[in-house]
């Protein structure tokens, strides 16, 4: 029983981390109808920037104020993400207005390659640590309730907490601020939004920038966990079933989807895996999403698509 709870908690926390990446997908899809395959590359790019800036700032500061170095690096990486967002809008999106979804998707695959290439050229392709002072050792709780207690990974717990806060902030941002309202208007109907004077291009820059910041936060958390290296880009592959399950346009969907996928894949790996040789969690997550899709083609919280003739 204790172990089941542990697996469940582990799954929930892994799910929160997936959500963080999935959130980037949802933001961009909502505002520009682009299914952004480059989100993983953005996570890598942002994390690389963060890790290297932090390292350089630390050296420049004489190596005794890691906190300040991290803060400087965070803002510097934010600026880099802004430049990236601006360049993507300017060079790619602007030229692909009103194209089909599939075309845009493939364009983002191109963007992903470019980001991976540029990121590694500028920042290097080794493993870089991000040290934001995350605790690494586990705590054991409820030892009276379960034999062996329930082990909680503090790092994951904090990461999940940060993800939750980020979601709350984004929700407020979308619902309450003028920029957020403009973004929603653009998401609903490009032309209508334009006709009431919302500048399309600027909105896109903003939303890609916000997605870049989400990628930065995701990059810091994942990077602090795993070290910053090329494979970070592959976390996007883990987040895809989350987006599909949650629905492409729904922020809460990204969260709930993340939790379902996280729990589903951990439980399946731990309880079903041993019978078939293990290693099933990736495709299990996809299959889970697929089964959901067959019953709800628009995802859990997505908007229903009605065909018109």
């Amino acid at each position, binding site marked *: 029983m204790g172990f089941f709870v542990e697996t469940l908690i582990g799954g929930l926390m892994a799910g929160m981390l997936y959500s963080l990446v999935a959130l980037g997908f949802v933001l961009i899809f909502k505002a520009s109808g682009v299914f952004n395959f480059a989100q993983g590359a953005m996570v890598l790019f942002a994390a690389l920037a963060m890790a290297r800036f932090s390292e350089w700032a630390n050296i420049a500061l004489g190596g005794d104020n890691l906190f300040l170095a991290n803060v400087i690096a965070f803002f510097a990486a934010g600026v880099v993400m802004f430049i990236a967002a601006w360049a993507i809008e300017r060079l790619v999106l602007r030229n692909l207005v009103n194209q089909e979804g599939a*075309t845009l*998707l493939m364009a983002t695959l191109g963007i992903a390659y470019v980001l991976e290439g540029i990121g590694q*050229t500028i920042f290097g392709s080794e493993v870089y640590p991000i040290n934001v002072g995350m605790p690494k050792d586990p705590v054991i709780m409820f030892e009276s309730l379960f034999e062996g207690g329930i082990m909680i990974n503090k790092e994951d717990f904090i990461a999940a907490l940060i993800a939750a806060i980020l979601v709350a902030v984004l929700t407020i941002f979308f619902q309450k601020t003028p920029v957020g309202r403009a973004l929603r208007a653009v998401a609903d109907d490009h032309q209508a939004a334009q006709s009431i004077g919302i500048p399309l291009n600027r909105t896109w820059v903003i939303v890609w920038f916000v997605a870049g910041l989400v990628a930065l936060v995701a990059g810091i958390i994942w990077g602090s966990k795993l070290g910053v290296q090329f494979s970070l880009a592959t976390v996007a592959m883990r987040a895809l079933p989350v987006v599909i399950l949650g629905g492409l346009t729904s922020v809460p969907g990204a969260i709930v989807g993340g939790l379902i996928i996280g729990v589903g894949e951990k439980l399946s790996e731990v309880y079903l895996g041993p019978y078939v040789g293990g290693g099933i969690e990736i495709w299990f997550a996809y299959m889970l999403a697929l089964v959901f899709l*067959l019953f709800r083609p628009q995802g859990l919280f997505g908007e229903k698509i009605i065909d018109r003739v």
Partner: protein
Amino acid sequence: MIYRENGQFKTTYAADQQIFTIAQDKVFVLGVIAFAFIGIPLLADEYMFRAILIPFLILSLAALGVNLLVGYCGQITLGAGAFMAIGAYAAYNFMIRIDGMPLIFGLLLGGLASAGMGILFGIPSLRVRGLYLAVATLAAQFFCDWAFLRLGWFTNYSSSGSVSISNLSVFGWGIDSPLEKYLFCLCFIVVFAFVAKNLTRASIGRQWMAIRDMDVAAEVIGIRPMWAKLSAFAVSSFFVGVAGALWGFVHLGSWEPAAFSVDRSFQLLFMVIIGGMGSILGSFFGAAFIVVLPIFLNQVLPALGHLFGIEISTAGISHAELIIFGSLIVFFLIVEPHGLARLWSIAKEKLRLWPFPH
């Protein structure tokens, strides 16, 4: 002045429904095929065969398959690599488990197995479409990656999970030298390209394109979406599966699931985009482009750097490769969404009018 259709009148519908309605086109393509069979074997060296021509032919076949699905039927797929793997492993099992299985049958059976799985994984396309479908096809990709790694039966319980095949022969004719391998692949690709062309100009091809262009209208005029989509998945997977079997048997000789990873799926999709969606010729252009580009960059960039006195490291080259490759994809999508094939046809139309442009 040579490329003209003046004076070529068609008096029957049969003549008008030929693959090449302009005589020069026919001559040109036959010339290219003849050159591929006779000229290239005389000119190319071993490296050209093994590192460029054979991969090019096999990937063209795979790209052709993907193009039938993506370009003609409009069903986007990110799981083509999985169907290559199914073709390769199925053919492997047919070959080792059935004594005296002729090679060509083995390869085709591999393709058929892939077609069967294609139908299975195509079922979601009846409910979901576009981006959601793209992700659904990734399920096929990851499932196959896992299955061929973990289920020992597929690899004949090889301890490392890697399988290999050798001593290929057709009708007692051994396929060992690069030239023989090249000709073997060439025969396949010529036949399959012919089949693909026929399918796309026949009723089934029109059904696919109708589903691609406007699925509701297609259904209203009596096209069964299930039949059209699943047949596209089946035919496409068949092509891709045969290509996968060739890739394993002829090109690599020994392989593991990583040879057909999700990167391969993306690569095939890029070939279709860059070559031209909905174009048979485009599949060849795309495959050529993607096979040759990295090799080209690897050769040219250091030389270029040398010219300016800069030493470009190996890592630098492959980063540059990523950047250039990504930029080209975006560039093509923006500038010429119909790919290299469209460029070809523009050139042809110009030529038809030349030297009187108006």
